[in-house]
Structures are given as C-alpha cells and as structure tokens.
C-alpha cells in the first residue's frame, strides 16, 4: 500500500521536474538568450547586471576624481606639490597651502578614534558577551540611536556644553597637572583640537560599537563553548572571541575612521577654524572638510576656487588611500586562517 503511494509522489515529482525543464528549454529560444549566449538566462542576466553596477561605481569614482582634477588645474599648476607641503593658507594674498588642514583632519580623526575604539569595542563586548538579554536590546537600540542624530546637533551640544566645560574645567586642570607638556600649551579657549576629537569620538562611537557588536555576535558559539569547556574565565573567552573577530573589528574601526575624516559640520563648530599646525591639543585647528564648507561661498577668484577643489581632491585621495590600506590590513589578518576546509 505505502510503496504504491510513495512511487506515486515520486512520479509526480519527476513529472514536475521534467515540465519545468521543458519550460526552461523553451525560454532558451528567446532572442535575449542569443545575445547573452549561455543556457541559464536568469543567472547570466543577473551576473551581467551586477557586474554592470560594480563597473558603474568604479567609473563614478574615476569620474569624480577626474572632475576635481580638471577643476583644480589652476592651483595644481601654480603650487605643484607645494600645495600639500606649505602651511600658509591666505586667500587675501592668494597663497594656498593645505598642510594645516591635512594635519587637522588626520590628527582630529586619529585622536577621536583613540578615544572611541576602546570605548566602542568595550560597549560591544558588554552587549554581545556579558549583558543579560533584557538589557542588551534597549542598550543596543540606544547606541544605534546615537548614530542617527544629525551632526549639527552634536555641534550645538559641543558649543554650548562641551566647549565651556573644556575651557573652564578640563583644560585648566590639564595645564595645572602637566605644565610642561607640549600637548597642553597656549590659552585654553575650549575651541580647538581637543574639542573636535571628543566630538568626533562621540559621533563614531555608535558606528564602532554597533558594528563590532554584530561581528562579535556572529562568532560561532562553538568557539565560546570550546573556550569555556577548557576552563576559560569570561575574560579569557572574550579574548579568544576578540582574536577570532579581529579582522571584522578592524573593519569596524576603519568605518569609524572614514566617518571621522569626512565629518564636517560638528567639527567646524568646535575646532576653532584656524589654518595652523600646533602640537598643543588646546589650540584651534582646521580640517579639510570644514574649510571647504566654510569658504566655498566666499571664493571670489578662480585660483581660490581651484584651490578649494584641489583640497577636496586631496581629501578624496586620502580617504581612498586609507580605505585601500585598511582593506589590505583586513585581508592580511583574514588570510592566515580563512583557507580552512570547515
């Protein structure tokens, strides 16, 4: 009895497969297949389409770079490499050197990361490994909420809360404690590199922590079990998990860095906007993004405008270099063990 039933279903299935194969065969005769060649229309179409998108993105990047290059040709001819090595940015006498802005962008971003990375990864460890589940959901939500706040609001908070606090409390304290340190020279304005770094760290914290949390959560449970079963403490298990996840965590940090380098509004509101290089964290500085945003409407001469666009080009190239470098770094940590058969 049962055997008959089974072979019935079997036959039906076979029929079904045969029919669907015939259908696919029929569609093969359409003219599109002739253009695209191969047998499976859907796959080929999908493959070509996605390839097209990928090429488009690549072309877009090349195109943007070329556009910026051609619109900054005046300043490129006039200043040459001096544009990125000179420290004078003086629109009045038409001298444009970008080094203070390059310095300000890199230093504020790195300082921001130095604060944000340990905090962000710490938050991620807490959320992914230690927090009880009733606490994890609301806390994750809150950290992600931080990422959605418009940067001008961070800027306002910076002006009205952070800067006065730095000026009246933190900076005098630092100068008292370390009177001879080159990091804390000059008048404590509040506005300056330190304020920018702190604002940036708060802004990239949610990016780093939420991505890191996802990465830690995606580490297979079997790794945790292996460590616990060997008699590892919670901290030791966490170390093993971190080392498993390190290339992903590195990726999270790079994304944070990208955000910090490009951030414009909040930084320009607190960094002091002075094109100078100073080792003191209390001194004002300037970043490429803020200078472009601030001065673009005032650029009266062709050379001025060209210099601003060249500055944008420099920012663009630096971002690309950092991203390539980061990719290589992530690959090199991955490559060591991703070849495994299981």
């Amino acid at each position, binding site marked *: 009895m049962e055997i008959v039933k089974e072979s019935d279903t079997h036959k039906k299935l076979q029929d079904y497969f045969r029919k669907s194969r015939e259908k696919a065969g029929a569609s093969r005769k359409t003219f599109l297949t002739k253009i695209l060649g191969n047998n499976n229309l859907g796959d080929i179409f999908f493959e070509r389409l996605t390839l097209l998108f990928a090429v488009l993105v690549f072309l877009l990047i090349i195109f943007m770079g070329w556009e910026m290059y051609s619109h900054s040709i005046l300043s490129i001819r006039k200043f040459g490499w001096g544009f990125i090595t000179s420290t004078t940015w003086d629109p009045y006498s038409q001298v444009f050197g970008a080094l203070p802005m390059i310095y300000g962008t890199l230093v504020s971003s790195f300082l921001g990361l130095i604060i944000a990375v340990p905090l962000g990864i710490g938050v991620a460890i807490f959320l992914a490994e230690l927090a009880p589940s009733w606490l994890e959901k609301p806390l994750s939500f809150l950290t992600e909420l931080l990422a959605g706040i418009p940067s001008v609001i961070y800027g306002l908070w910076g002006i009205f809360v952070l800067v006065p606090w730095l000026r009246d409390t933190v900076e005098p304290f630092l100068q008292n404690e370390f009177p001879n340190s080159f990091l804390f020279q000059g008048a404590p304005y509040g506005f300056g590199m330190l304020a920018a770094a702190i604002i940036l760290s708060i802004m990239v914290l949610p990016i780093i922590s939420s991505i890191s949390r996802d990465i830690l959560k995606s580490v*297979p449970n079997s790794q945790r079990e*292996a*460590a616990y079963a*060997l*008699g590892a403490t919670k901290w030791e298990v966490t170390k*093993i998990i971190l080392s498993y996840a390190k290339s992903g965590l590195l990726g999270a940090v790079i994304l944070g860095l990208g955000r910090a380098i490009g951030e414009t509004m909040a930084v320009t509101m607190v960094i002091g906007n002075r094109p100078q290089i100073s080792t003191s964290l209390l001194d004002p500085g300037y970043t490429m993004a803020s200078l472009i945003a601030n001065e673009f409407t005032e650029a009266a001469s062709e050379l001025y405008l060209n210099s601003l666009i060249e500055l944008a080009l420099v920012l663009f190239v630096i971002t690309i270099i950092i991203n390539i470098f980061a990719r290589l770094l992530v690959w090199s940590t991955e490559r060591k063990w991703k070849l495994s*058969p*299981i």
Partner: protein
Amino acid sequence: MEIIEQVKTESVPKNIPMDLGHVKISVQDLSAFFGKTKVIKNVSIDIPEKKVLAIIGPSGCGKSTFLRSINRMHEVARGTITGKIIIDDEDVMKIDPVYLRRKIGMVFQKPNPFPTMSVFNNVVAGLKLNGFRNRKALKEIVEKTLKQAALWDEVKDMLNKSGAALSGGQQQRLCIARTIAVNPEVILMDEPASALDPISTAKIEELIFELKKDYTIVIVTHNMQQAARVSDYTAFFYMGELVEFNDTKKMFTAPSKKQTEDYITGRFG
C-alpha cells in the same frame, strides 16, 4: 537523607544491580530546564571510574543536555538544573565552573579548534589558560598528547599552521588532544565522530579505548555499533528520562526493557 530522597522520586529507574567498581560521578535526581521546559526528568545514574559510559537515545531526548550539566556547560546555554551531581564527594554546583571544567574536559560534535591559533597553540590552549608557559615542557606535552590522539605523524611538520588548516577528522583529534592536554579526570564526548569518515571514526574509537585506561569517559553516540564497540556501560535515554542503564553487553544482547530493545533494533527513533 539523600538515599531517602532518591527512593521517594518515582521516576528513578529501577536499575539492574551491577558492580560498577569505583563510582566517579554520581548523578542524583537530575532535572534540567530551558526556561520552563523540563528536558531532563529526574535522572539518577552512577558513572564508574575509568570506564566508558555510552549514552544513546533518539534525537532531542536530552543526551547533550545531560552531558553538559555534568561540567556545567548547560549554564553557557542558559539552562538550569535541579538535583545533584557529585564528583569525588563534591557537589559540582559548589565547585567553581572554571576549575570544574579543567577537571572534566569536553569534546563536541563539530570539531571546534581555534582557527586563530596554530596547531601547537591549540593543543596547549588550556594549559596556557592555566598560566603554564614553560616552552620546553609545552613542546613535550604537545608531542605526547598529539601521539596519544593519534595525530602526531600527520601534523608534526605543520605545528605552526592554523588549527583550521587540518581536515575535519584531524581537527576533531586536535580537539581531543586539546582536551587531554590539561590532564582532566573525566572526558565528556558529544557525538565526537558523527561528522567524520569511517577511518577517522575508527581512529577515534581506538583512541577512546586507549584513553579509558586513565580517564573516565562519557560518550554520546547515535551509532549503536559504536556504543557496543567502545563502551563498558550504556544508558538509554528517552524523552528526557533514563529508561535503562546496563552493562553494554547485556544491553545489546538482552535488554531488560521493551523500549530499549525497540530502539537498538531500529524499530523507532
């Protein structure tokens, strides 16, 4: 007191009287829960020292959960237990789990070496956790344990490669080496050969045979032949209950329960 409690519980199986020799672990009226679901129901069993106990039963009957409660790994999966598990006169719930798990090692169904560590460091991972750092001694231990795990010849030239660069069967033997390197007293194995080919399986079975000279072993398996080959005693679980606990030979020739017979002859499960 305890004995009286034990007798009171209805579902304590009336075990066939056996001479178990020295009892290493005594499980008394163990129940395990995930949330409110009771997945182990009042199980009592004595685990003899330096013998192999096989646990069999259909999928989902609680074998893994039972095994994990012995070294408190159920806590990692947020399970809870009631009842008592006594190892060498100590209640496991009163021992620091970190210490307990160094005494009771565990091998999992899916090989789980640490991919970021070399083969060498995988073997000594547990020792390093204990703060053991003497390079020369570590080298000796690695060689000794890998030989014990029948893996040395295959990996002796690639000790610096990632632990994940081995084949599945080699990875599993690496995990066994990692477990015995810390010199535990008990080894729990949860279907250690289920993902392996017949040759690797045979190697692991030989290994278990060797290991029982020094270690108390509890092994969960779906493979009846395997249970019959490697174990001295067998426990049959069904729906969270211990149905029969018997000498392996008797279990597979003359089981005392109808359910056991049906299961091992493949009539259900």
